[in-house]
């Protein structure tokens, strides 16, 4: 993006984002980049809640949020964008209202549908960063394929029980592996059971989701290094992290589609 497209800050915005602007790693330019950015967040459940809330509070200019679910009582134990009064409401509507409460400057596009269909490439193409907060493998692979084709950075998180996973696939760069390089979808059926039948430790999705928000903001403001080619895994029972390295698979069929 060119400098002339960056938004000017009002006095109120300077104050609102002052604790970011004070960070030399962010500064005015980083905060302007965050404000000019468009982030696609897929899934408004346990991970999507803290992602959307931190991105909104941090001043991401535009967010497209996707989810076709409605808020159920079983969600409220951990999906903190949704409240008791939102029961039965579309999650994207409930989350959009929460985003507006946090920061009315954020423009939100709420899409009440699954994204593993045709408009996905257009949605990905319009975004600067894509954050995968979904709850199923077909959507994870579809999002990865769209990000690979459109050369967009993908921040991937997952959380079940006490176990979390996080990685960034920066598909703008040729050397970055993709999700399929790490977890190919060949090799028989996955034998991992439906996720809805597992429990989820409430703050686990907060930990992983907050890290996804952090990685998205880092990408937008050009801060530090992303965990590209590294899979971070958390066992929250012992609060032990592992950092596992992986490379682009020269035989990956998804990477063959990359520009």
């Amino acid at each position, binding site marked *: 993006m060119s400098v002339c497209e960056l938004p000017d800050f009002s006095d109120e915005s300077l104050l609102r984002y002052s604790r970011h602007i004070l960070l030399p790693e962010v500064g005015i330019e980083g905060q302007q980049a965050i404000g000019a950015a468009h982030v696609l967040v897929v899934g408004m459940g346990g991970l999507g809640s803290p992602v959307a809330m931190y991105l909104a509070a941090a001043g991401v200019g535009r967010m497209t949020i996707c989810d076709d679910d409605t808020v159920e009582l079983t969600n409220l134990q951990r999906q903190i964008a949704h409240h008791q009064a939102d029961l039965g409401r579309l999650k994207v509507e409930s989350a959009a209202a929460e985003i507006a409460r946090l920061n009315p400057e954020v423009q939100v596009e709420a899409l009440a549908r699954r994204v593993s269909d045709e408009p996905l490439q257009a949605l990905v193409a319009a975004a600067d960063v894509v954050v995968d907060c979904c709850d*199923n493998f077909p959507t994870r692979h579809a999002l990865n394929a769209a990000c690979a084709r459109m050369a967009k950075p993908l921040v991937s998180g*997952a959380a079940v029980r006490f176990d979390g996973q996080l990685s960034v696939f920066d598909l703008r760069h040729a050397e970055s592996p993709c999700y399929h390089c790490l977890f190919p979808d060949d090799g028989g059926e*996955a034998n*991992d059971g439906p996720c809805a039948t597992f429990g989820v430790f409430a703050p686990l999705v907060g930990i992983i989701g907050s890290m996804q928000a952090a990685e998205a903001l880092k990408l937008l403001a050009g801060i530090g290094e992303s965990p590209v080619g590294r899979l971070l895994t958390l066992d929250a029972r012992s609060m032990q992290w592992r950092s596992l390295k*992986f490379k682009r698979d020269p035989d990956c069929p998804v990477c063959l589609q990359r520009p």
Partner: protein
Amino acid sequence: MPTIAFTHHLQRHAPAHTVAVDANSVAAALNLVFAAYPALRGYVMDEHSHLRRHVAVFVNGAMLRRGDVLSNPIPPDAEIYVMQALSGG
């Protein structure tokens, strides 16, 4: 001697702790564990004895090429870690 450990997700069917395995490849190490935990095989391998979809194996913290990971020789200090993709969000 190499060691092998499994993600918590698989530990219902696998050793709960890291175990030493007298093996010179990941395949040999897995077969030793499968002998003691037969139900584990179906979670790690498909019917063609390839790694099952969404299972990844790391040796000393790094992933090897999927086609080679089972058969390649491993060093005596190899730490094998078998894990599975999570989809929950």
